[in-house]
């Protein structure tokens, strides 16, 4: 799906960063290993990156590197869960999710004393998709159940959440990469959400509040 690539040289030109910075960020895992795509070119081997992802990432790093250390940044971008767990009141007070979504979540999976990062992530994704109107309440139920049962197996990997519909029937699933999935014509892709980007957003949102 994402065939638009950018060469390393072009990336440095556009973003104005140096080789040293790029390699430093790679060492600190700010840029994931699998974004480095090696292809042969006329000078031998060249490294390419997925264009949109890498430019967005480099912009983010440049904007945030004054406020956060490289190690803290690495934590933000890491697909693995954060350590924190929060109480439901904190979730609302710190404006991480809305009461409405939280109630729906509690309705589905029961009241909890404290929410772990994975739970918060699930609520956050639920809220995001409900708000955007892509997800119905019934599908929200699917989402919470699926995340609860299966997300643990994909934690730490670059998982994607996919929702497809055919003839009004929704199918929701988690997969490591949705790049190579082909369906018959009647199937409509409704949602394709890389979980890692939501983790990033959520971690930033949680960090922000801690500092404030």
């Amino acid at each position: 799906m994402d065939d638009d690539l950018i060469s390393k040289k072009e990336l440095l030109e556009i973003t104005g960063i140096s080789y040293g910075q790029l390699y430093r960020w790679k060492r600190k895992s700010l840029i994931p290993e699998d974004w480095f795509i090696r292809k042969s070119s006329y000078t031998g081997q060249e490294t390419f990156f997925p264009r949109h992802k890498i430019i967005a990432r480099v912009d983010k790093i440049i904007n945030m590197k004054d406020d956060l250390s490289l190690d803290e940044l690495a934590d933000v971008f890491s697909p693995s869960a954060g350590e924190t767990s929060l109480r439901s009141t904190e979730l609302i007070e710190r404006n991480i999710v809305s009461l409405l979504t939280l109630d729906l979540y509690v309705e589905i999976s029961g009241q909890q004393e404290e929410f772990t990062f994975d739970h918060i992530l699930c609520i956050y994704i639920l809220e995001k998709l409900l708000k955007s109107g892509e997800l119905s309440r019934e599908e929200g139920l699917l989402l919470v159940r699926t995340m609860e049962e299966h997300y643990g197996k994909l934690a730490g990997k670059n998982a994607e959440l996919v929702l497809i519909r055919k003839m009004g029937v929704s199918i929701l699933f988690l997969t490591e990469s949705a790049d190579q999935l082909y369906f018959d014509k009647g199937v409509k892709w409704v949602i394709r959400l890389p979980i890692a980007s939501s983790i990033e957003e959520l971690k930033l949102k949680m960090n922000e509040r801690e500092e404030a």
Partner: protein
Amino acid sequence: MKVSGASSTSAQLNDLRITGNGSSGGGSYAKIKIMGDSIIHGDVECSHFKCMGTASIEGSLKSGNVSCTGNMKVHQGMHSEDISIMGELEVMGGLNAQTLKVNGEVRVEGSLNVEKVKGQGTLSISGDCQGEEIIIRGSVDIGNMLNGEVIEIKLYGPSRAREIGGGKITINKAMMIPLIGKYAPGANGALQADSIEGDEIRLENTKAAVVRGRNVYIGAGCEIGLVEYKNEYKQDNGAEVGQYNRI
């Protein structure tokens, strides 16, 4: 054979001492001291690991400081703080450490991640070699990428890396004291790489397809296909460069 587990004052963990020929099943210890020849059949965790002689760990090793005079082999990955090797260290499954001091040879099947590597001898890594400071007098053989903020290699043997990247990269040829009436051909080490990219690059005795950097100096004995530089470019008379462009 003598294997003794003496209780240590710190944190209820025992020490493990092997003197002579011995083996252990592994486990958690405060200090491990091996003098002689030993096999550990399993994973080990400890705060200090000292080996004088031969140690073979069939599991993984997690430890604070490691010092080894002799031979050491770890079969399933190694995580340590400060490592100092006089002799040989072989790790299968990746090596992570704060500092690595080498006097001899370090072989890693997998990748090497350290803050600082310093030493004399051979570094042979099948995957990536990453660190803030990588300073080696000797030879390197890196299967994949050598990535460091500061990379300094003084070549005393044939070296190879698929890709080198980082902040400051310096590759120097060895200083040889000429022996009277004796000339050893090929004794001067050379480095071969597909590409070398960094901010400050100084190369000698290096063969590479592409070199890209901000300030680039190509010294004697180099054979470079293409140089791309941003600020400054200098080339020694004894260097062969196919093409150089300012970008």
